[in-house]
């Protein structure tokens, strides 16, 4: 067979091969872009079959969303502490409240034991009010054993793992001081104390417990305290009087509750630090912002 034969064979092909397909037809069959009238007769059934294969989902195929969301919740919760503390870069578009918490917590971690200095003073303790609001009255402290030293260290581990980001400058992270106090030491690690301070500030900033706990970094605190609902009591015992939890004052700012509206209108590229900027976190906020690595 010479070249001439090949080309004439090609030309003769359609009549002899009803199944012949050119690339364009294949592409349009596959993408469902071929009007029925243009489908080669031999492929009419194939076109139907492909349409059936790509048909709209049936309800059965969409069962099980709850289970996947539960997994999603579990994984993201575990990760949030890491993301908020060490790797803010990939998630630059936090909503305001979370952004605030990140800044505050970063500050708390950075200053650590040097408690009040950098995080600023929180006006008078409203211990009773806090207990009431946070429901601390019901779940008195001793319910679960509080393990001061190891807990925060363990909590930060997942963060380190798999984090290759150079951005994660890890501002004086727990690892350096977490293991510090011996296991039996009565005083909780400064790290947790810093978290409590941050928690108190976020709380005071108008968030209230639910919203404050929503901030990722506080999950570590919740673990240390033995549960989200025990954090308030836990921190009450930990903080000096003038830094304890106080009533949210900025109610309107915090009243957005858990409205996790999906259509978050923030623009993708924007590393805009904090929509409108976190109003509280005086002092500490600015100096810590570079730590977010945006």
């Amino acid at each position: 067979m010479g070249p001439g034969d090949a080309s004439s064979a090609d030309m003769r092909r359609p009549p002899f091969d009803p199944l012949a397909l050119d690339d364009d037809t294949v592409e349009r069959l596959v993408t469902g872009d071929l009007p029925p009238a243009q489908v080669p007769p031999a492929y009419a059934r194939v076109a139907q079959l492909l349409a059936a294969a790509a048909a709209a989902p049936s309800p059965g195929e969409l069962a099980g969303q709850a289970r996947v969301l539960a997994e999603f919740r579990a994984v993201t919760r575990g990760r949030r502490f890491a993301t908020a503390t060490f790797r803010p870069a990939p998630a630059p578009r936090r909503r305001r409240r979370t952004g605030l918490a990140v800044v505050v917590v970063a500050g708390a971690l950075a200053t650590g034991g040097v408690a009040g200095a950098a995080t600023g003073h929180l006006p008078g303790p409203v211990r009773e009010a806090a207990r009431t609001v946070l429901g601390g009255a019901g779940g008195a402290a001793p319910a679960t054993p509080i393990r001061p030293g190891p807990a925060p260290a363990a909590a930060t581990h997942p963060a380190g793992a798999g984090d290759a980001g150079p951005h994660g400058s890890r501002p004086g992270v727990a690892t350096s001081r977490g293991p510090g106090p011996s296991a039996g030491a009565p005083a909780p690690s400064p790290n947790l104390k810093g978290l409590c301070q941050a928690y108190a500030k976020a709380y005071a900033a108008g968030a209230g417990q639910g919203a404050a706990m929503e901030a990722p970094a506080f999950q570590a605190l919740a673990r240390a305290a033995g549960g989200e609902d025990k954090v308030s009591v836990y921190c009450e015992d930990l903080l000096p009087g003038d830094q304890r939890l106080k009533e949210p004052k900025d109610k309107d700012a915090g009243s957005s509750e858990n409205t996790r509206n999906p259509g978050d209108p923030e623009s993708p590229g924007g590393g805009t630090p904090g929509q409108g900027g976190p109003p509280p976190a005086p002092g500490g906020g600015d100096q810590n912002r570079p730590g977010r690595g945006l």
Partner: protein
Amino acid sequence: MIGPDFPDVLGAAARGDEEAFGRLWHDLQPRLLRYFRVASAAVADDLASETWLGVVRGLDRFQGNEPAFRAWVFTIARHEVLDWRRRAARRVAEHQPPDGLADPAAPDDPAADAMERVATREALAMVATLPADQAEAIVLRVVAGLGVDRVAAIMGKRPGTVRVLTHRGLRRLAEHLGDGGRVRKVV
């Protein structure tokens, strides 16, 4: 397809927004199930779960547009299939004659019945009778809605190869459907 909202939805999901993640899931889960239905029907649900776990874990590191995201998800899905096949092959080697595994599709599986409309199920079962790489190329193109280049990347083949596989697969389907007259019940 999620469309123009996709960047926002992805960003929100990466930040832990469940509703946004739900939208991603809603869009891709049926496609994943169908892909797995063709690749290894009996464990489609398990493989889909494993895939989503991988997606959740990697979500905050992913960057790209919607087609890229889809391709990424199906890359994870494919790894799940390969892992499962390895494990299954090991089990089979230990317990059964190897050809016990040769039937990847289980079209009469009652669970599968509940999962999909009959036409869809039969169509997938039909595609599953093709040689594995042809079936995979077709499913990734038709069901996953991916372009030739992305399918090629996922399958570790050249785009030209994917075109040929798709072409041959369609042709073979036409032959089957032509002489059978109808979508044959497989097995």
